[in-house]
């Protein structure tokens, strides 16, 4: 009887064995290994066994041993595959746990969790939704959805993931950085419809939370216990509802399905996902608490900063109040005797004194008048230390001030015209202070006008800023003049003699407003009070 197999045919060289591939050359030198790994399945060996006479007792023994060996080998391979899959799962859960344990940011935790559920390198579910318990709204609120919206997107995403060859950690990082924001918007409509009141005790989400167990729905379309709207919304018959519980607190619900592949969810998948749900719930709760803590810390920091600012302001105001009281007190002490001196001088002047004394009396009256003006400015300054802010109509203010100064301007043979913009918003200001400043600017301009001159007062608004301007069409300012006017109480500015403009600068600065001087095309100067944006309502 002739045999094909190299074991029985001495002419057959093992080097001719068709079963040994490249890299398996060690089998030539190890007949035992070669027999177990290759010959047992070799066609030549099988043919040799088949051609053995039936009455050969070794034939049945060999055949039985061969079958038993193959069965055991298959079992071993299955166990090995299971072991390998579990090893991968442990490694994967370990990786996830590391990220979940170290991350304090809610979005990062969610990115890791949702990527792990939906990625082929993770649990491989097609789609997942996270709903979080909102105690203020007493609802389970749709928070995040991850996965494709339709078949086309599914193939595109999976192809992209395949080609990227990212690990699970890299995938979740990529998702967190570049996809989370769009993913939040993509499922907004679905998330809103998934939101359910915590009082709806029969709803499957609330049941899962209450019973603290994962509900595996296998035939949603025929299940009477499941809300039809939810089934229609998901459009799948199989899905998982996993409660997220951390330290006896309900955190939320994870909803996962295979709406594209429609692949059944195996008990092993279910078990793995349940194992995974616990650290996810813990990480989400911790990140949420950390986020809230961070918000509270920020609020506290902000409150502390405001408190410090207020304290500094109070100290400053106290100092100003002292200065203001001293200034007002001195001014008051001067005003009474001054009124008497100036008043008696005027009285004597009226009662017909000899001509040689008349000049002296006129000087006395003029000096008293000047001191009166100084006092008025000192009072204005001391009052400016405590601005009284309110909403005022700027046009009305301009009209009132203009009416008040017109008689004085008339004495100087000057005209005052108003050019007020209609419909400008009310402004947040101290009426007395801004009135004083406008009056001071008008009188400053009037002082340099030739008789017959016209002074224009105009208001305007550009939406966020209000301006009140006095136009001097006769005089342009040199850079030196401007610098001098911008410097409060420079040597040429004297209280009671037009020093009002310098005081005006200080008042406006304290008031949060601005005084500017601009050239007018063709000659002249425009003096403008600009009320800052924050002061306009």
């Amino acid at each position: 009887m002739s045999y094909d197999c190299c074991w029985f045919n001495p002419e057959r060289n093992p080097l001719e064995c068709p079963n040994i591939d490249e890299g398996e050359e060690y089998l030539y030198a190890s007949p035992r290994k070669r027999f177990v790994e290759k010959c047992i399945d070799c066609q030549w060996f099988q043919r040799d066994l088949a051609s053995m006479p039936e009455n050969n007792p070794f034939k049945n023994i060999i055949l039985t041993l061969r079958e038993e060996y193959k069965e055991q080998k298959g079992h071993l391979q299955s166990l090995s595959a299971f072991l390998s899959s579990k090893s991968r799962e442990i490694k994967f859960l370990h990786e996830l746990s590391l990220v979940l344990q170290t991350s304090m940011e809610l979005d990062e935790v969610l990115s890791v969790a949702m990527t792990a559920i939906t990625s082929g390198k993770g649990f491989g579910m097609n789609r997942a939704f996270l709903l979080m318990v909102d105690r203020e709204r007493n609802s389970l609120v749709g928070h995040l959805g991850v996965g494709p919206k339709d078949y086309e997107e599914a193939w595109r995403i999976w192809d992209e993931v395949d080609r990227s060859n990212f690990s699970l950690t890299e995938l979740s990082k990529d998702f967190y950085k570049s996809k989370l924001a769009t993913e939040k918007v993509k499922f907004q409509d679905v998330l809103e419809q998934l939101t359910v009141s915590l009082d709806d005790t029969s709803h499957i989400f609330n049941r899962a939370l209450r019973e603290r167990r994962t509900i595996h729905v296998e035939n949603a379309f025929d299940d009477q216990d499941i809300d039809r709207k939810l089934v229609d919304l998901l459009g799948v018959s199989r899905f998982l509802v996993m409660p997220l519980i951390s330290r006896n607190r309900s955190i939320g619900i994870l909803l996962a399905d295979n709406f594209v592949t429609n692949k059944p969810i195996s008990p092993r998948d279910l078990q793995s996902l349940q194992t995974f749900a616990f650290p996810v719930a813990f990480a989400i709760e911790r990140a949420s608490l950390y986020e809230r803590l961070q918000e509270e810390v920020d609020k506290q920091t902000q409150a502390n900063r405001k408190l410090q600012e207020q304290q500094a302001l109070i100290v400053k105001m106290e100092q100003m109040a002292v200065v203001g009281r001293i200034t007002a007190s001195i001014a008051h002490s001067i005003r009474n005797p001054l009124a008497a001196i100036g008043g008696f001088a005027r009285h004597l002047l009226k009662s017909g004194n000899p001509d040689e004394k008349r000049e002296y009396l006129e000087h006395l009256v003029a000096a008293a008048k000047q001191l009166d003006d100084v006092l008025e400015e000192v009072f204005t300054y001391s009052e400016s230390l405590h601005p009284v802010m309110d909403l005022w109509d700027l046009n009305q203010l301009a009209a009132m001030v203009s009416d008040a100064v017109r008689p004085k301007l008339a004495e100087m043979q000057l005209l005052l015209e108003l050019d007020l913009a209609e419909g400008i918003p009310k402004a947040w200001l101290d009426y007395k202070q801004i009135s004083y400043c406008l009056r001071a600017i008008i009188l400053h301009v009037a002082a340099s006008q030739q008789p017959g001159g016209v002074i224009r007062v105009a208001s305007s608004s550009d939406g966020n800023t209000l301006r009140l301007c006095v136009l001097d069409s006769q005089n342009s300012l040199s850079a030196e003049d401007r610098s001098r006017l911008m410097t409060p109480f420079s040597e040429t500015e004297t209280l009671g003699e037009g020093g009002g403009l310098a005081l005006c600068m200080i008042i406006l600065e304290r008031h949060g407003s601005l005084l500017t001087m601009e050239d007018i095309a063709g000659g002249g100067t425009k003096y403008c009070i600009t009320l800052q944006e924050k002061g306009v309502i």
Partner: protein
Amino acid sequence: MSRILIVDDEASIRLLYSQELTDEGYRVDAAASIAEALELLAKNSYDVALLDIKLKNESGLDLLQKLVKEQSEMAVILSTAFSCYKDDFSAWLADSYVVKSSDMQELKDEIRRLLARKKAD
């Protein structure tokens, strides 16, 4: 002839106001304190009272409240060195508020205005 009562603790101011207002044709009395003013008010009837706010250890605003209650026919002008009292609510009870100045024109104008208003009423 209209009668005016001046209430001011400064002697020079009482004298100046008395002279100027007498020259204007008014019959003028002057008091240095609230007690003196009340004494004069008990004896005479006045058309206008000129009140200083800071009266040594007293406040003209206290007298103002009394006058508003008991002498409602009489016009009251607050005359003070402090322009800041304009913001005091109690000062709003007065018919007018004039800041003291060596130029008494504003005060005289106010007296004329109040008397004309009283006459019209």
